[in-house]
């Protein structure tokens, strides 16, 4: 049991990588585990941490060079060294120095421990990758303005230029505003007012395309306009409602966006009377196992809301085939760290 605990703690100590401030503690644990005099953890530029004293005449650099050149375990008593391979890539070296009257660990034992260290380092990289993925989630949405949408918007504007130049100019301004908002990189959070404004311009463009057979209602309690929410959470849902709910529907469509405060919560509801969908499909989309072409925006928003606010603040969908869809965003009015710049 004690050994297992030690092994687990080595992983904990290496949480911040070889250069983290607890890696010395990891070296100390490895030294005790192997029963040797000294342990050195090195990266490709040379030794990083050492625990215990090496003999005065040790040429550590030569040993490292040897290991890095051949990529295999190297033994030259009292030293024994093994490479650290993270994701099959050489990233460092573990060196152990046996006590003078001891033969030290075998090459095989050392390779096992090196593998352990490598796995811990691999975890560290995965952890930081996860944070990068969360940021990338947002970037995907930003970059997700489809060529389809750009084309449709421009075509709709073009259609108006002759008949209604004023409207065309308004639409073009909307288009510019919308692009600027979608590509803005000011921060991860915006006010409800700003997000709503972008949603409004988006809807305005879509309406021109639909030859105004789409009706829009916006009902907003002014109290929640200054609330900070994650960037692009309303617009993708509206876009989803238009693309998968209303486009496929024959005849006029209606979409309503309403928001209000509910005690300490801020609630935004997006409802359309489009074609709706199978609840099973909706469930699959939110679980992240839906068909790739459908509801990417919904799944993305849901995931980001849960990352920021916690699992109970995910999206709530109410839908049925042929009966429209209602999506509810319910988030706290205040969340530490959710601030607009």
């Amino acid at each position, binding site marked *: 049991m004690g050994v297992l605990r030690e092994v687990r703690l080595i992983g904990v100590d290496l949480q911040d990588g070889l250069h983290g401030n607890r890696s010395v503690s990891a070296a100390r644990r490895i030294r005790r585990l192997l029963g040797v005099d000294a342990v050195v953890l090195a990266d490709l530029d040379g030794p990083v941490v050492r625990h215990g004293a090496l003999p005065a005449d040790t040429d550590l650099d030569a040993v490292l060079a040897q290991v890095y050149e051949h990529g295999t375990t190297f033994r030259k008593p009292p030293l024994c060294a093994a490479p650290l391979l993270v994701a099959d890539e050489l990233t460092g070296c573990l060196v152990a120095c046996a006590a003078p009257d001891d033969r030290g660990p075998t090459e095989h034992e050392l390779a096992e421990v090196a593998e352990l260290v490598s796995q811990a380092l691999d975890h560290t990289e995965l952890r930081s990758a996860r944070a990068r993925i969360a940021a990338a989630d947002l970037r995907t949405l930003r970059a997700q303005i489809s060529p389809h949408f750009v084309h449709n918007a421009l075509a709709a504007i073009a259609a108006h230029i002759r008949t209604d130049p004023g*409207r065309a100019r*308004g639409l073009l301004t909307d288009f510019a505003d919308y692009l600027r908002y979608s590509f803005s990189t000011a921060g991860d959070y915006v*006010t409800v*007012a700003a997000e*709503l*404004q972008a949603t*409004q311009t988006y*809807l*305005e463009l879509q*309406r021109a395309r639909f030859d105004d057979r789409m*009706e*829009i*209602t*916006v*009902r*907003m*309690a*002014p*109290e929640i*306009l*200054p*609330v*900070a929410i994650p960037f692009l959470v309303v617009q993708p849902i509206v876009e989803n409602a238009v693309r998968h709910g209303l486009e496929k529907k024959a005849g006029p469509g209606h979409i309503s966006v*309403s928001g*209000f*405060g*509910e*005690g*300490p*919560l801020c609630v935004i509801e997006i409802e359309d009377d489009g074609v709706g969908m199978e609840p099973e499909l909706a469930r699959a989309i939110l679980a992240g196992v839906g068909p790739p072409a459908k509801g990417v925006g919904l799944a993305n928003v849901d995931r980001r809301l849960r990352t920021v606010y916690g699992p*109970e603040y995910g999206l709530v969908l109410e839908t049925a085939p042929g009966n429209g869809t209602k999506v509810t965003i*319910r988030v*706290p*009015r*205040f969340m*530490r760290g*959710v*601030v607009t710049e």
Partner: protein
Amino acid sequence: MTAAASMTAIGLVLVASLAIGLYGVHAARTSPDFLVASRRISPGWNAMAIAGEYVSAASVLGLAGMTLKDGLGAMWYAVGFTAGYVAVVALVAGPMRRSGAFTVPDFAEYRLGSPAVRKLCGLIVLVIMWLYLVPQFKGAGMVLHLVSGTPYWVGVVLAGLVVSASIAVGGMRSATYVQAFHYLVKLLFIAVPAIYLVVYVGAETRAEALRPVDVGELASEHWSRPLIDLQGAGLPLLSTWSVLLATTLGAIGLPHVIMRFHTSPTARAARRVAVVVIGLLGVFYLFPAVYGLLGRVLTPHLVYSNATDTVSVVLPGTAVPGLLGSVLTALVATGAFAAFLSTSSGLLLALAGGLSHDLFGGGVSRLRVAVGVGAFVAVLLSLPAGHLDINVVVGWAFAVAASTFCPLLVLGIWWTRLTVTGAACGLAVGAVTATGAAVLSAVTRPSSAWLTVLLAQPAAWTVPLAFLTMIVVSSRGTPADWSERAVLRLHAP
């Protein structure tokens, strides 16, 4: 007659409130000139909403009643209520908005990052809100008893039902315009009868009101000293200063009022809103004294029957006979009802938010349940409180706020070295001492004059004690490494 007129007026105010509440969430068909930004609440409306939520039954009924009973000194409460907003402008409005915090527990989380302190704040919210709800419900029960003759307890229970129902119907969604409307109702329905009465009673009565006579056990020279003498202990300056400290600093920490600043788009707007509130309060507080002073001449019997809190409602009918008197009574009763409704629904909603969000996990069904539970407890607490002066109980709520949230907000905003332990200790000490003193004062009668005053209005010692506790305990620990960053953000232009 009076009863019918009052009921009609109150009914109209209720219906209008509901209509405004529903209209507040504007419906807008899309149109090219639709701009979300233009639909932000203007500072004027926001300030009226804050004043509407803040001017409670305590101001409408309690100030006049206390003036009748104890003298004009009662108006120091009003001065303190207003001065509180100078402190809000100077110390919390801007930074609180920049923190993004909606409630005081939110601010604690922002500044200290501790779930435990957040919970503690949630508990204190409950204490303050219930202490503040009791006098509101008492006022409602009393006014109803007066205009329709129902027993006190029926009025209290009815009040609880009306407030919970109005929140359930729509008060949860958009309250700003409803509260602003209530401010106007209060101002008009208190000011118009007051001005009319001053003109109507004639020069002789006016002069008499300024030359008070002995009524009951209170000698006139005592009464005409414009200072507060709590429980007749004979320490007017100490009493007055303690009340001023409680009301001024308590205004900073009142949880339901601080929430309204979240509606302002920027910190600068929040500060300006608070300034407008001072003007609105100053105008309103000119009038309650009229009822107290005229009541001293025209309805002195209320002092003997221990019903001074009803003077605003009784006076118009006594002074003006006939139909006009009934109408004036109805106006004042409606103003009092609006004061009750707006303050209580604000209080109850803040209480329910704290109960459902800070103490237990969120969810809308829980919010509704919490509103019900909060109203139920408030009704239970109000039933035996019939004999307590409205203003005194309100003073206690302010004292608890001044001894807990005021130091937390002030030190949290202006002192980088506040620690979690320091804040928690200060909150606990302030809450226990201030609440304890109020409870003791309600159930015992100490022999020493000093002790009497310091229990009846404990702010004079509990506020410094809470500040000192936070500072001393914090100085012995080390704040989190992001502590300075959290403070600097609050002041970044």
